[in-house]
């Protein structure tokens, strides 16, 4: 089978993921079970959602460091609304999503209108969102709302007594599907790619660059807020220290999935596998269970290294 060159990084990621899964299954008891693999999705649903938004930003040649903080802010606002003020979910959740999108759009507007560097604008955004969390509440807030708990704890069995998925995991898959459609089949998505390829050219080609740039950050903010909602399903709490450093995980997932940080090249599906790869590295370490705290870090780094280098080798070979 001949593989089009543009799919090579994606293929590299997918096959390396398969190799890692095989390795885990052979080495550890209980690893090779459908539930373990579904857990990758269940446990990382929020990361998938956040990374999808990040993929758009990176494809457009930007970066968004604020996502982790926006996740935290969303959890705490949601917890406050639902738990302390007893708002209904159907009102609170859309409100939080709007808030995320507006936050992103504001940063996008600053970047676009005043030609600021995305890195610092979103870094300031990161400080701001995290700071707002502490203003709302320093302590963590548990969510005990009945409807919420039901949503969070519902498990959908793939077949009777079989492995199960959470609502969040399914939501993540839906978000991914929508993102794939957006990226590949709509004017917006293609404009994002064009801007990533060459912003100057995109302007000269008469594409709506300014609007798209702002929309990209708004989308990322929206995804981060949605990630926050998923996070509350996962944790049933709002907390200012949630999702610290999540932005790096998201960026790593996107880049491992074969998207170029310089923009214009990459796939949404790659991002999914990027997240799953990070997840499986963690799972391998947990199943091993003999590593000390520092060896955990070293081994994560080493696996990341092996993965990235193999990916490069694979690409070089195929070309």
């Amino acid at each position, binding site marked *: 089978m001949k593989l089009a060159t*543009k799919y090579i990084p994606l293929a590299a990621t997918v096959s390396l993921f398969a190799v890692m899964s095989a390795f885990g299954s052979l080495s550890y008891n209980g690893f090779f079970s459908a539930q373990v693999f579904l857990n990758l999705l269940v446990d990382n649903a929020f990361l998938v959602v956040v990374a999808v938004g990040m993929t758009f930003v990176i494809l457009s040649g930007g970066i968004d460091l604020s996502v982790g903080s926006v996740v935290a802010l969303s959890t705490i606002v949601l917890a406050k609304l639902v738990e302390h003020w007893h708002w209904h979910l159907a009102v609170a959740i859309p409100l939080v999503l709007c808030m995320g999108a507006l936050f992103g759009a504001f940063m996008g507007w600053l970047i676009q209108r005043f030609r600021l560097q995305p890195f610092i604008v979103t870094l300031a955004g990161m400080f701001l969102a995290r700071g707002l969390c502490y203003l709302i509440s320093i302590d963590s807030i548990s969510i005990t709302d009945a409807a919420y708990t039901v949503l969070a704890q519902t498990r959908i069995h793939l077949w009777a007594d079989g492995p199960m998925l959470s609502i969040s995991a399914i939501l993540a898959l839906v978000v991914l599907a929508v993102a794939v*459609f957006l990226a*590949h*089949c*709509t*004017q917006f998505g*293609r*404009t994002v*790619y*064009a801007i*990533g*390829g*060459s912003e*100057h*050219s*995109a*302007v*000269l*080609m*008469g*594409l*709506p660059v300014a609007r798209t740039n702002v929309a990209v950050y708004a989308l990322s903010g929206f995804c981060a807020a949605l990630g926050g909602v998923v996070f509350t399903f996962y944790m049933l709490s709002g907390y200012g220290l949630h999702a610290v450093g999540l932005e790096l995980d998201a960026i790593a997932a996107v880049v491992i999935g074969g998207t170029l940080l310089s923009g*214009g*090249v990459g796939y949404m599906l790659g991002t999914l596998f990027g997240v799953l790869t990070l997840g499986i590295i963690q799972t391998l370490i947990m199943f091993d269970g003999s590593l000390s705290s520092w060896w955990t870090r070293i081994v994560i780094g080493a696996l990341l290294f092996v993965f990235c280098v193999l990916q490069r080798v694979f690409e070089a070979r195929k070309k």
Partner: protein
Amino acid sequence: MTYTQQAPGAATPVLELSGVAKQFGTVRALSGVNLRLFAGEVHALMGQNGAGKSTLIKVLTGVYQADQGDMRLGGKSIRATSTLDAQRLGISTVYQEVNLCPNLSVAENIFAGRYPRKGLAGAWAIDWARMQREARALLARLNLDIDVTQTLASYSVAVQQMVAIARGLSISAQVLILDEPTSSLDDEEVERLYGVLRQLRDQGMAILFVTHFLDQVYALCDRITVLRNGELVGEYPAAELGHNALIAAMVGREMVANPAQVAGASADVKKEQAVLLQARGLARAGSVKPLDLTLHRGEVVGLGGLLGSGRTELARVLFGLDQSDAGELIINDSPVKMDSPAEAIRLGLGLCPEDRKAEGIIGELSVRENIALALQARQGLWPCISRAKQVEMAEYYVKTLGIKTSNIEAPIGQLSGGNQQKAVLGRWLATKPSLLILDEPTRGIDIAAKQEIMNEILVLAKEGMAVLFISSEMEEVVRLSDRIVVMRDRAKVGELPGGTDDHAVYAMIAGQA
């Protein structure tokens, strides 16, 4: 200055500019320029490098905002504030340089912003199949048969330029503007393009056309507007303005368009000269088939061939940009391993690349730094060429090559296209190479400057520099070269002596086909 008032017929112009002025800092790029464009005409915009042609077009299409002046489209006053605006108003533009997205497919580049949609999946979903079909059809009009799903970056500059033209053509507009669209196309492609343009003109489109090739102007255009130093010289019917008069209008003084002397004349003497470079069975999988090549000191060798015949690839392999995987390369009688441009430069080679935007200029660095770069790279980190020395060097080339710049500390990216090209050339001349490979060195350079550059090159060749010359203008190749190496399908098919008729070259290309 003369300004002829008569217009074809009594029609009002589709597009009329009056008193347009534009200033960049201290540079007065345009002042008081008028332009009239009528439906059903091809109008040439002429002027030397840096005269303000591209700036005028950018002001017209909303890339820059004019400081002064009035623009009217179909009698209504307009002011485009963005390119998107201009497109909506019915102005379709192909800018100088390839301004497309290298990461997108050819088909997408043509249709970006105006994708054909599929009905059912919402009015949203792009109809990829239809888009590719239409892209192929459009390119076929220009006689280009390529895989439109490949990324644009995988094609040569010439193909990219054709894609840009195809995009311009596909936008149904009242006015079509083409800024030096033919600078790296060969004769056959150019003929094709003319066919299409004439057809559009006959359908009533107004076409504004920028070029430095005088023959093309007379072959295609109905009227000519000439700019000099950002000012309007005049508007003339093409038929009434002779060759020499046109040059005089552009340059501002009488100048006889005498072609540079024929180089081939002294070829016999040069045969005696020492061999500089020898390639035996040099090849690279997928780009150059095994080939032998000998270059002597003081010799100008032309590379003849059609688009995509592998001339650029050969130049890249010789220069160490791509590694050869077979054969050997001997320079000054010792075999060398050419593994990087740095190594090539150390050995006295220079390569003026085809794609100046991507591989030539370092946009934000000054003209001075750009010119000094290669020489400094050959010397390594230390000693550093002193500032005074750099200034002297830069000023020398600004003068000899006639680079038009406000000062040598201006970022090279702000220069007009042709002047950027001259500066890149200056960079290589400054290294005093023993072999200079020139890939389309005269791209976008005006007629007066071209002569000066060619003379400069011939002078250097007389002093012992070897030149490998690639150009899409076969006539130029034939005129300047002592010897012509003809290529087809990435392989060398033969050699011809200099001064031959260009038909002989075409015959050789076609002959064994």
